């Protein structure tokens, strides 16, 4: 969510008769409009804060947490527990709330509301029906001895998968008691269905426990809590039977083992998808598929390719080549489809989504991706404000001030008469707008050689483009390439992004949780995958504060 949304009124303006006359002098409607993925809520407030959470001298364990599974995690948990009935049940779960970072896994926001409780019930009922219909396939004993012992076998296998730990005697006792009641009123298949519903409803399924066991003044996570943390953090889903077996055997203790498990999980298709979710949430580029562009014929046909281009770019830079912040920001290649390359005016790749070298004028890195530039634009033109805010909030963790309530209209584009920069400067550099827009518009001006769909333009309707810019308080630059190159060297950016990455991994913005390899990630010694995997070795991964 854009931080521009955290605005109250700067003070009720005297709305006298001249109010409408201030339309030309006040801020434009660009500020605060549309979010740009995550905001910079973690950073300190103030006019020019930045960098997000500061680097700590050492890592510390954070608070114990009960983390409700996200919708994605919940659905994956049910699907992987019962692969035999894939496609036979439907989820009723609705969207998760999004944090001010743009993440859907913020532990403090994930609650079981009345609506969510009903949705869990609906989902459980659908899955139970599928399980009932397939009971003999799931339970060999269902055909020969459909009884309590067979139900216990069901719990031992499927209950363990859902709870992500072996069921304790007390768990089993209550569940089998419920099974007995169901069997008395229905038949075995349906009673197993009711047992399934009870398992799905259980808080031991719904929540990931990161509470640990309190002993000798500290909380140590159990082996099965660690298994769950590994699986969901790095694999985006529940622990496999094999990982649970390792937890049973007490093998998930040494930092080296945990990091290796993390790497193995990240390398899986689901693990990669989980990290794509991080990038998509942080940068917001997935929204490109829902955009419309008033003046660009053919955009609808390529916007899905734009999203895929960025996914492939991240695959190449981050996964295949182990890249970090510098590589993400300054890579000279991209991975368009052939149709998209033609749309951009780029040389054609050998096949769809193969890597090509960007033209000299084609920008560099993630901030030159068409999906990013198109998302951070208006329907009818480029947007220095949105692009500037993206960098300011999501790469520098700077918090813009509150937006006033009465922001007047930005004049419509006048192609061939004024450039976008001139149009923005006319409105944003005067009056009440100036104090806000001077923080981010100068950053966004550096992108002006790219139109509203990310295509390079040498001029704007025949007018010369001025792409000089400034990151206030940090550096000046000319053009997107120089912006990306200098931004990659900024410690403020490195601090900010590293904070964002570990907030996603841990589902919380707690301080000092992931410091051991943080500086190495910041200075480019290790890339995204190595840093994220290293978090498995942090104290927070296996211990928590006592209270």
């Amino acid at each position, binding site marked *: 969510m854009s931080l521009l949304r955290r605005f109250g009124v700067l003070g*009720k303006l005297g709305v006298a008769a001249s109010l*409408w006359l201030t339309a030309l002098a006040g801020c434009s409607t660009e500020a605060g409009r549309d*979010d740009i993925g995550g905001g910079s809520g973690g950073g300190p407030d103030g006019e020019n804060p930045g960098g997000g959470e500061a680097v700590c001298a050492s890592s510390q364990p954070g608070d114990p*947490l009960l983390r409700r599974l996200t919708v994605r995690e919940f659905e994956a948990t049910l699907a992987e527990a019962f692969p035999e009935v894939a496609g036979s049940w439907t989820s009723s779960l609705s969207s*998760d709330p999004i944090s001010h970072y743009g993440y859907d896994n913020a532990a403090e926001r994930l609650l079981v509301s009345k609506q969510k409780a009903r949705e869990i019930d609906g989902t459980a009922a659908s899955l139970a029906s599928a399980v009932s219909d397939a009971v003999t396939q799931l339970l060999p004993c269902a055909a020969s001895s459909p009884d309590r012992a067979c139900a216990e076998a069901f719990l031992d296998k499927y209950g363990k998968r859902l709870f992500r730990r072996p069921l304790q005697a007390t768990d089993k006792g*209550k569940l089998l008691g*419920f099974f007995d009641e*169901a069997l008395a009123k229905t038949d075995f298949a349906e009673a197993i269905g009711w047992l399934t519903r009870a398992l799905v*409803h259980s808080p031991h399924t719904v929540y990931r426990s990161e*509470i640990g066991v309190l002993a000798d003044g500290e909380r140590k996570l159990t082996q099965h809590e660690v298994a769950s943390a590994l699986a969901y953090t790095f694999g985006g889903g529940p622990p496999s039977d094999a990982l649970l077996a390792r937890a049973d055997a007490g093998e998930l203790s040494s930092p080296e083992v945990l990091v290796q498990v993390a790497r193995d999980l990240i390398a899986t298709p689901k693990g990669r998808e989980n990290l794509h979710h991080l990038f998509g949430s942080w940068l917001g580029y997935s929204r490109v598929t829902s955009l419309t562009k008033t003046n660009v014929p053919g955009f609808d046909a390529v916007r899905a390719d734009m999203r895929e281009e960025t996914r492939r770019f991240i695959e190449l830079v981050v996964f295949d080549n182990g890249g970090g912040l510098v590589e993400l920001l300054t890579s000279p290649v991209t991975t368009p489809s052939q149709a998209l390359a033609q749309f951009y005016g780029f040389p054609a790749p050998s096949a769809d989504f193969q890597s090509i070298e960007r033209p000299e004028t084609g920008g560099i890195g993630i901030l030159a991706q068409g999906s990013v530039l198109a998302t951070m634009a208006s329907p009818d033109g480029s947007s220095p404000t949105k692009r500037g805010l993206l960098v300011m909030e999501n790469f520098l963790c700077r918090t813009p001030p509150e937006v006033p309530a009465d922001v007047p209209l930005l004049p419509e584009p006048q192609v061939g008469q004024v450039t976008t920069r001139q149009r923005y400067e006319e409105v944003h550099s005067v009056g009440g707008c100036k104090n806000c827009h001077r923080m981010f518009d100068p950053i966004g001006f550096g992108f002006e050689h790219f139109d509203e769909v990310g295509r390079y333009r040498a001029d704007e309707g025949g007018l010369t483009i001025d792409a000089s810019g400034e990151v206030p308080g940090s550096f000046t630059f000319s053009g997107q390439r120089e912006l990306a190159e200098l931004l990659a060297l900024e410690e403020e950016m490195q601090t900010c992004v590293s904070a964002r990455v570990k907030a996603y991994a841990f589902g919380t913005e707690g301080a000092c949780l992931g410091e051991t390899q943080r500086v190495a990630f910041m200075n480019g010694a290790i890339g995204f995958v190595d840093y994220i995997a290293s978090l498995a070795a942090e104290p927070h991964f296996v211990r928590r504060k006592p209270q």
Partner: protein
Amino acid sequence: MKLARASSRARLRLERRLFLKALGLGLSAPVAYQVVRAARAQDVGRPKRFMLFYMPHGAPPEHFNPVGSGTDFTLADSGVSILGPLEPYKSLVNVYQGFMYPGAQTHEGIVKFLSNSRVDNNDDTTERTTIEHFIGNEMGTRTLALGAVAQRQWGQDFDAKLMWDGQAVVPQKSPLVAYDEVFGGIGADPGAGDNDARGELQQSLLALTEAELESLHGELSGLTREQSKLQTHLESLRDLKSGGSHQISCTSAPSLPAVEALRPLASGQPDEWFYAESNFPAILAAQLEVAAASLVCNARPVVAVQPLYANCDIDFGFMGSSGPHHNGLSHTSPQISGGVANMEAREPFAKAQRWFLEMLTEHVIQRLLVEDPADPAHTVLDNTIILLVSEIGEGQWHTSETQEILAGAPPGIMSYMPIVTIGGGGGALKTGQILNYHDVSKPIGEGDREAGELWLTLARAMGSSTMSFGGASQLVTEALT
């Protein structure tokens, strides 16, 4: 608390208790008597239904405000006349003027204006309940929350949180799912015995889960924040256990043209399809028909429909007003030409907003003009309250209270928060009037009543006996019979 039907003696006891309670709250005797009179107005023995309809981004007042005052007014003579589609039904329409949303600023007010809550403007986590869910809870029924592109694709962010039932409510995005959920069981007869067994097992299941939650809650002693999560879960589970009840009047699932037209297009589609702006008009039409049928059948007597989210930029070219709804249409300034308001300047935005009223009229209001199955002497609309609201007043200036727009052009045009009701509320609402409470002698923000007072009034009209809502305790008595 639910206001049950009462015998005359029981009614008198109830009124006396209500009177004493009102006095106990510090209300003067005359005001306490008004409370009793309001309560009496609610309990007229007729079925009641409620619908919330959200219209994003306010309205240009020069095209919205009725011409006239009191009971002598027209809705169809204000430029584009955004409320024009309601003109044939204006005997059942109230237009409310002079209300403000306390502390709700700009589009961010979407998270708080319907609960009258006073949380910080950027607070989208503190528990609250919005008026439509409050009414549903008071009526012992589950509010049907429907959406048409009511959030961005990636999840429910700040701009989408219109409805709250403790936590933010995610409207059902698919009319097909909504239809099946509401009407799927009508006419089915699985057998009474089976129903009893399933009902008992469902209760046992939830009791088992409740016990697990309580046990886990106890294990987390000292971890207050995590215990709080479990407490919320427990309350939600108990709500699920209690269920809801109402008498469904339809004996078969209704045939809804917009839903059937959507079915072949939407079946099997991923979530993304339901958030694509190209599908918005068809989804909204279908959701409105589901809403109307829910009301007619009394299948779900409290419904809310949320078309779009705040700050959405869907291009409204599909209805003739090309341009992004927020950045392009709503953010056009009021203008003066030759000393009077330039009515053409904001026609595109006005037409876009009128389109919402046309959709509401075609797919809901006209469908409610049928004999109420539960009350043949009246129509369903007579027994319903449709509440039309927006999160801001003047689209360009993001007002949360009454402000004078175009003050330099006599006569100055007042921008009020767009709040309209359609329907008689089962005889509880006094309709066919403009109710204006704005005090022009007071500064901006001080001359209005809190919208919470109106929400309280509507809750009371729907049969609640609550004495306050969101901190508001004064009734808009002129709106009640």
